[in-house]
C-alpha cells in the first residue's frame, strides 16, 4: 500500500513550505494492494530531524490542531482533506527538516502502524537576521548574489522599482506599508526561486545585531564606508548601477543599535488607528535608513544595498505585530487603513492596483514599470500578479483563507 500526501493541495516540491497559517492538504491511497477494506484509517504524523521545525494537523482549518491526525481514507484513490500549520516558535532551520508520514494499521487491531508514504516539508519563516544559523546565512547571501548575478540578474528590476521617480508610489502616503509588503514578497519569491529554503530575515534595528554586520554575512564597513566581505562571501561580486560593491557607513557602533530610533514598543504604541501608526514612516523607518551614510540613506540608492530589504522586513514585521495587536487584518475596517485621505493619489486607495506590478506607465504613474507582474507562489495564490492595496492586509488569511500571502514572522504568532 502507498499513500500520496499533497501540501498546499499540490504535488509540486515548491509547494512543500508551511507558515503558522493553516495550509490545505490532501492524502490519498495511490496503491491499495494488500488492503482488504474499502477504506483505511490513516494516521498523519511527523518525523523531525534534530532541531528541526514542528507542524500540527487538523481536520478543519480552524482546528483543533495536534501532533497527529487520524483520517478515514477510501482506497479507491479519492483524496481526503486536512490542514497543516507550523507550530509557533518551532520553525525549520534547513530545507525539508520535517518529514510528514502517513501510516495505517498493519491489521485492524494491530498496534503497528505501517508506513504508507512520507513527504518532507519546511516551516519557512522570516526570522531575526541576527539569529540565523551559519547555514541560513550562507544560503541567504548566495541567493542574493545569484539574484544580482553581476548586476545583470533579476535583482536589477528590484533596484529600478525603488528610485526617486517612483517614490510617490511607495512613500509619504498611506500605501507605504502595503506597497513595501508586496515589494518584499516579490523579492522573497525570487530568492526562493533560487533557493526555496530562504525566507527574508528582518534587521531588528532597535536591538544590537553584531552578527549581521560581519564579513561573512552582510559585511562590515570600513572607515570609508565600503562594506568589507570575506573572500568566501559571494556578495563580494555584488554590483549595481555598473559599480561593484556596497557603500554603507554606520553612524553608530554596529555592535549596538542605532540611537534615536523608536523602539518596537514605542512604535506599537503609536495608536490603534492606521493614520497614527503609519507615522512610523518617519521614525523608526526613515531614521533607520539614515542611521547610515551610503546607499541606504537616500531613496534613490537605498535598494542597492541588500540590507535595505532586511530593514524593510522589520518595518513590515512591525506592521504585522500592530495588525495582530489591534486586529487590523481586515482592510474593510476603517481603522485598518487611511481610506478617507483626500490626498490619496492613485495607487494609495484600497481598490487601486499598485505600480509597477500593474504595468501602468501613464497618468500620474512613473513612465516605466520594471519587473512585470508580482512573482507567483506554489504555496498560495495571493496577492495575485497585480496586487491591489487591499490585497496586502490579510497576509495570514485571518479574514479569508484565500488571502494568505505565504509568509510569517518568528515572533508574530
Amino acid at each position, binding site marked *: 500500500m502507498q499513500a500520496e500526501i499533497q501540501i498546499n493541495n499540490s504535488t509540486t516540491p515548491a509547494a512543500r513550505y508551511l507558515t503558522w497559517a493553516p495550509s490545505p492538504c490532501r492524502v490519498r491511497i495511490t496503491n491499495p494492494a494488500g488492503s482488504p477494506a474499502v477504506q483505511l484509517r490513516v494516521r498523519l504524523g511527523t518525523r523531525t530531524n534534530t532541531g528541526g521545525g514542528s507542524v500540527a494537523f487538523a481536520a478543519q482549518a480552524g482546528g483543533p490542531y495536534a501532533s497527529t491526525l487520524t483520517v478515514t481514507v477510501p482506497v479507491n484513490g479519492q483524496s481526503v482533506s486536512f490542514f497543516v500549520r507550523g507550530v509557533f516558535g518551532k520553525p525549520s532551520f534547513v530545507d525539508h527538516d520535517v518529514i510528514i508520514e502517513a501510516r495505517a494499521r498493519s491489521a485492524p487491531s494491530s498496534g503497528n502502524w505501517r508506513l504508507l508514504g512520507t513527504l518532507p516539508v519546511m516551516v519557512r519563516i522570516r526570522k531575526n537576521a541576527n539569529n540565523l544559523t551559519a547555514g541560513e546565512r550562507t544560503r541567504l547571501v*548566495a541567493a542574493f*548574489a*545569484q539574484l544580482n*548575478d*553581476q*548586476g545583470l540578474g533579476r535583482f536589477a528590476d528590484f533596484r529600478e522599482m525603488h528610485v*526617486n521617480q517612483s517614490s510617490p508610489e511607495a*512613500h*509619504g*502616503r498611506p500605501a*507605504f506599508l502595503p506597497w513595501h509588503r508586496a515589494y518584499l514578497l516579490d523579492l522573497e519569491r525570487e530568492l526562493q526561486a533560487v533557493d526555496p529554503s530562504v525566507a527574508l530575515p528582518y534587521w531588528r534595528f532597535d536591538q544590537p545585531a553584531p552578527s549581521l554586520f560581519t564579513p561573512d554575512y552582510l559585511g562590515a*564597513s570600513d*572607515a*570609508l*564606508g*565600503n562594506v568589507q566581505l*570575506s*573572500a*568566501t*562571501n*559571494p556578495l*563580494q*561580486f555584488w*554590483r549595481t*548601477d*555598473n*559599480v*561593484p*560593491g556596497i*557603500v554603507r*557607513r*554606520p*553612524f*553608530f*557602533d554596529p555592535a549596538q543599535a*542605532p*540611537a*534615536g*530610533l*523608536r523602539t518596537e514598543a*514605542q512604535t506599537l504604541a503609536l495608536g490603534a488607528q492606521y493614520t497614527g501608526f503609519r*507615522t512610523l*514612516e*518617519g*521614525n523608526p*523607518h*526613515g*531614521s533607520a*535608513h*539614515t*542611521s547610515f*551614510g*551610503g*546607499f541606504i*540613506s*537616500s*531613496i*534613490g*540608492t537605498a535598494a542597492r544595498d541588500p540590507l535595505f530589504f532586511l530593514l524593510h522586513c522589520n518595518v513590515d514585521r512591525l506592521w504585522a505585530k500592530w495588525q495582530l495587536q489591534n486586529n487590523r487584518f481586515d482592510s474593510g475596517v476603517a481603522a485598518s487603513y487611511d481610506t478617507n485621505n483626500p*490626498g490619496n493619489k492613485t495607487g494609495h486607495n484600497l481598490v487601486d492596483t499598485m505600480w509597477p506590478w500593474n504595468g501602468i506607465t501613464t497618468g500620474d504613474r512613473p513612465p516605466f514599470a520594471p519587473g512585470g507582474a508580482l512573482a507567483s507562489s506554489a504555496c498560495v495564490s495571493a496577492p495575485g500578479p497585480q496586487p491591489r492595496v487591499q490585497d496586502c492586509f490579510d497576509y495570514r488569511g485571518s479574514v479569508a483563507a484565500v488571502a494568505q500571502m505565504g509568509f510569517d514572522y518568528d515572533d508574530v504568532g
Partner: protein
Amino acid sequence: MAKERKKATRASRNTGGRKSVPVGRARAQRVIEVPLAAPDLLPALDILRDPGRSVDARLEALQTIQAASFALLDFDSVRPDYIAALRQAAEDQDPELRQRALGILAREHDGFAQEALLEGLRDPARALVGPDKALQLLSYDPHAGVYPIARDIIHTSEDESTRREALRVLAGDPASAAVIEDVLADKNEPSAIRRMSASALHALNPDKLQRWASSAVLDTAEDADLVATGLTALTQFGDAKAIADNKQLRKRMSQLQEQGPAKIKQLARRFVKKYDL
C-alpha cells in the same frame, strides 16, 4: 566659491580631515522626532545652515531632514532649500559635515558636488575630502570625466584605499578592462586590491574572470584569499559544462576538499556539491 573651498581645505588639514572620517559621531539616546510636514522641517534647515551652531546639532538636523525625505509627501517643497544648505555644508570647516553633505548630493547626482569632487582630484590643494572618498562619491554617477583620473591613480598612487576606489570606478568603463586585468594578475599587488580587481573584471568581462578564477584555483602558489575569491566566483557563477569538462580543475577540487585552510576546504566542498562532481 573657490576661496571658500581653500578655506575649508585649510580647516580640514587642521582637523585631520584630509583622509576620510571614520564612523560618525554617536547620537543621543533620546528618540529624535522626524517631522511629517514640510513646514516643520524649516527649524532643522535653519540649524543645518547655521555655522554658529554646534556640529553635533547640525549633523542631527541633517539626519532628521534626510530621514524625512523618506516619508514626506511634500518634501519637494523644501528640496531646493535643502540642496542649497547641503552645498553650503559641503564646504563647511567640519570634515564630517562636509563628507555627509557631499555624500547626499553625490547620491542625487548633483553637478555642483561632482565638479567639486573632480576638482579636488585634479588639484589636491582644493580637495573637500580625501581622494578615496571623492572617487567613492563619484562612483554614484561615474562618467567620462573621472575615468582618466582613476586610471592615472592606479598607476601613480601608493595609497591602497585610493587605488581600490579607482578600480571600483573603472569597473564601469569597458576601456579599462585591460588595466584591471593587469592588476589582478600582478601578485605583487595587495590582496585587497586584487580582490577588488576581480570584482571589477567580473563586472566588465565575466568570462575572463572565470578563466582567471580557474587558473587561480589551480595555482598552488596563489594567495589563499585570491583562491577563495576564485572558488567563490566559480561556485556562484561558473558554467557547469565548462567545469565538468575541466579535468584538471575537478582533480584540484578533490585535493582542496582535503587540504589547506578550513575556508578553502569548505568552499571546495560547496563547489563539488553544487556541480555534483
